[in-house]
């Protein structure tokens, strides 16, 4: 019998752990915007995983970072070739360590971007946050949580507009209002809000935004260390 639910209710690590302890032979699938994430277990050992063009251990580490999405655990008889030989305990421990480093890496990248923005002309305030609301860098502490929430929601709405009108990957959103220009950047795992004076010269401002987008896009699970080195 299949077990179904959402990762909002149970963590992926717990789900894998339960299946391993029970010595199940099963296929765990999570629906994500990047496509299905799949883990195969044979008698309680993780033997294969695939997610977003990655396979094996790398895929497991990425899958462990998922915190929402419908999942399904079902018995399986037709198993794929084994790509993972490490023990499930070792994989989960290493996965948690990678996640922790990634979080620290995100914060480092965001702080570097923050220092860059502190010195940028015409920038009135800024914020860099993760898509789950962790604020990593800001010049407006007082409204940071509200701004982070708004940035996450706006990124979500821009994605909805994109899918409705088949517009492709979201870059950034600019809002002209009163005397300010507000830029919302959707950079994969991070979002940024930059409020600039409307009178700012757009050429340099656009170049600055491009630069920041490239920096923030470096924050990927597999290359976070590399991204921090590039910016340093």
């Amino acid at each position, binding site marked *: 019998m299949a077990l179904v639910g959402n990762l909002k209710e149970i963590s992926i690590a717990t789900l894998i752990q339960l299946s391993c302890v029970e010595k199940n032979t099963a296929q765990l699938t999570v629906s994500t915007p990047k496509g299905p994430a799949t883990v195969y277990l044979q008698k309680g050992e993780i033997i294969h995983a695939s997610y977003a063009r990655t396979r094996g251990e790398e895929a497991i580490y990425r899958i462990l970072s998922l*915190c929402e999405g419908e999942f399904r655990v079902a018995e399986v008889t037709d198993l794929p070739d084994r790509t993972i030989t490490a023990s499930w305990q070792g994989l989960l421990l290493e996965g948690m360590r990678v996640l922790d480093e990634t979080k620290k890496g995100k914060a480092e990248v965001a702080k570097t971007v923050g220092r860059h923005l502190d010195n940028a002309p015409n920038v009135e305030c800024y914020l860099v946050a993760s898509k789950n609301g962790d604020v990593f860098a800001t010049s407006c502490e007082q409204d940071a949580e509200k701004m982070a929430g708004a940035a996450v*929601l706006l990124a979500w709405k821009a994605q909805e507009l994109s899918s409705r009108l088949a517009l492709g990957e979201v870059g950034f959103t600019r809002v002209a209002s009163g005397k300010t220009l507000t830029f919302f950047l959707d950079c994969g795992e991070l979002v940024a809000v930059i409020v600039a004076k409307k009178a700012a010269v757009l050429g340099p401002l656009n170049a600055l935004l491009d630069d920041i987008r490239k920096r923030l896009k470096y924050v990927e699970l597999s290359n976070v260390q590399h991204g921090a080195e590039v910016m340093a």
Partner: protein
Amino acid sequence: MAVNMSTVARKGSLELLQKLAPLREVEGVRDYFFVDRKGTILARKPDSPVEEEVAAACARDMAQVGEILSLLPGQEQDERVFDFHFKGTVLIAWDWGGAYLMALCKEGVNLAMVRMTVNVIKEELGKGRRFRGYLARHSGGEYLLSEQDVGSERYKHVMALETGIGAEHKLI
């Protein structure tokens, strides 16, 4: 899809359609439509391929974006212009007090030219008493937030921050 002239005529927006015509002349503007916050199409480019229900959903998205931005300090609510930059396309949306003019443009379009053209259109529309009354009738009403939107944890979290009610909601 051909323009649904019965809808246009029924809504009495033929004049509006004519007023928007200069947008057609701007190089790089692929499509445009004008919707109120209830999702009713007031006018659109005659050969617009955008289905009515899609345009209505876009209006709802814009109403929500407006609501999200009103949470931020220093964001004046009137006369906002939104540029959504996607790969190869820019979607520009003008918030005219509860109705949205939305233009889909090719990447690299002369944004200054588009904005200038729309400013002229807006001036022209502002002079028309009939249009002002028409907009007043259409711009009121509730945002079309779906149950799914209102029920989302992210939405509840941000609204809780604003109102102080239900602040236990976590952003997920």
